[in-house]
């Protein structure tokens, strides 16, 4: 099915009344997902955003609760706020990233209400990639640059119109508000061509998890991370990183408890109150990063927690390239213990 961009734009502008609508916007130094009021503000031709769209469910800085102290008494209030949201223009890698985050924020014992309630009230309109950046390698993870997994409604840009795929019930509810038409044979052929594309850059991850099972004590980690600065860039730019800190912001007798993004690359991340630190060196920290994404997460959740978006590669100040890191692990010799 398809819809002309003009008609889609009209429908989009109508949705703004009922939803908070988030879409890619050019902010001068790159693409950012931002709240928009009109389809004309949306940047249509873009590779992907600088920062991942995870922030709409898991903001970088978020109030969990507030409290007020009076003498010895205290009153506590939840700060959970949820709005009906549409995220437009989510790329397939990021849509998959959200499915992976879902597994984290709802585990075998707990559900994180801040993430989940927002997630449940959000509709994802995915947009297939017709241009592929050199740092994109999502095809390594069985994600297709024009794949609809993770989206509720999925679009492919055909020039003057979008091909529309209804993926979930939520997507159907939105599609009901669109005047859809049939694709012509030529358009169908174009869709098929776009759908069969793969990222030129690809890494082999077929044996990475089992290899890493045996690599905790490998000398590979000794030199791998020497150039890493231990900043937060790779984790903050990653659509699947979920680590956070909880702290308190206090003003006199009132305060809020907030959570903020954090990352395993920071030395303080695991520092005990006693001064002991189980990951007190960069080697242990980079091992954690790779192990978590390509081994621990697989054992716990059945898939790797990298979607090949390439953001960490593009943004790392010292050009740590996760593709090379994985490749190096694939090839590393195993030491006999």
């Amino acid at each position: 099915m398809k819809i002309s961009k003009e008609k889609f734009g009209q429908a989009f502008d109508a949705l703004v009344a009922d939803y908070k609508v988030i879409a890619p916007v050019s902010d001068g130094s790159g693409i950012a997902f931002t709240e928009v009021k009109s389809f004309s503000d949306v940047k249509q031709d873009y590779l992907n955003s600088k920062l991942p769209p995870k922030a709409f469910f898991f903001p970088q800085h978020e109030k969990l609760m507030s409290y007020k102290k009076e003498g010895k008494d205290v009153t506590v209030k939840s700060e959970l706020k949820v709005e009906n949201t549409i995220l437009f223009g989510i790329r397939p890698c990021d849509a998959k990233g959200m499915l992976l985050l879902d597994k984290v924020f709802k585990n075998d014992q707990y559900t994180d209400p801040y993430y989940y309630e927002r997630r449940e009230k959000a509709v994802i309109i995915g947009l297939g990639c017709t241009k592929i950046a050199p740092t994109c390698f999502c095809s390594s993870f069985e994600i297709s640059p024009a794949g609809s997994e993770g989206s509720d409604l999925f679009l492919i840009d055909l020039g003057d119109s979008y091909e529309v795929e209804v993926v979930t019930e939520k997507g159907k509810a939105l599609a009901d508000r669109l005047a859809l038409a049939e694709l012509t044979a030529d358009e169908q052929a174009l869709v098929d061509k776009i759908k069969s594309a793969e990222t030129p850059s690809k890494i082999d991850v077929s044996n990475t998890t089992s290899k890493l099972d045996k690599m905790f004590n490998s000398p590979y980690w000794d030199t791998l991370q020497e150039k890493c600065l231990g900043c937060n860039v790779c984790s903050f730019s990653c659509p699947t990183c979920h680590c956070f800190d909880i702290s308190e912001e206090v003003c006199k007798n009132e305060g809020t408890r907030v959570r903020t993004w954090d990352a395993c690359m920071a030395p303080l991340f695991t520092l005990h109150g006693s001064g002991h630190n189980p990951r007190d060196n960069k080697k242990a920290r980079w091992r954690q990063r790779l192990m978590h994404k390509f081994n621990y997460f697989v054992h716990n959740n059945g898939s790797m927690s990298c979607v090949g978006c390439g953001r960490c590669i593009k943004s790392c100040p010292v050009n740590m390239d996760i593709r090379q890191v994985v490749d190096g692990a694939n090839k590393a010799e195993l030491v006999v213990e």
Partner: protein
Amino acid sequence: MQQNPYLPITMKLVKNLVETEDRLINTFTLEFMNKQDEENFKYMPGQFAELSAYGHGEAPFGIATSPTEPGILKFSVAKVGCVSNALHLMEEGTMVGVRGPMGNYYPIEQFKGKNVVIIGGGFAFTTLRSLAKYMLDDKHRGDYGDITVIYGARNPGLLLYKEELAEWENNPNINLVTTIDRPAEGWTKHVGFIPSITEQIAPSSVDTYAVVCGPPAMIKFTLPVLEKLNFPPERIYTSLEMRMKCGLGICGRCNIGTEYVCKDGPVFSMAQLKELPNEY
């Protein structure tokens, strides 16, 4: 609907007791404000909770009471930083926040019909007290065989729960061995480090579980002793500490390999730990 696991319940600090001579450890007694809160807070020995000192933050502490002690929770807290300092300075009657109970607990079902040796060092004795207290309760004592407690500290002033220890001395239901590192005036019981005292006492490993908690060095040297006494790794349990924030297995901070200590632990058997990377 599931409760918001980030929201603490409010409890009243009814007692702030200086526990050790160096004044670095205080025991806090908290009272539930209503029956509902208490019912929702069903816990077992070995679990922990996140305590909020409003205005300062939140930190995890092992629950020192046993579920057989209704109405209250106790925590023994060492003064090390932001939250623990704030707790130490807190006046009785102040409201504190409590999130929990969190984590797993000592496998008391498996312990049934067996002997249990509890070995604790320093202030890590908190959840071990909970365990001993639970097994000693009239309703449960019959479920277990011999209960031995080996507990040590650097000097007599640093032992926790002194009144209770005195009571256990004379309790036929429990075999208490206390020790201090170096001789001290007026101390008539054991002198020596926990590993060597354990070796001296040599508890039989037949049909017996061992639970060991304490500083890393103590654990490191006690394990070989237990091995020598033929305790298999599946029958040695310990409780781990990691830096924690959420306590829910979400913030990603406390993992050892695939396991999140807050949610999958803090109690692990030595057999389990052998399968995990040595990163704690």
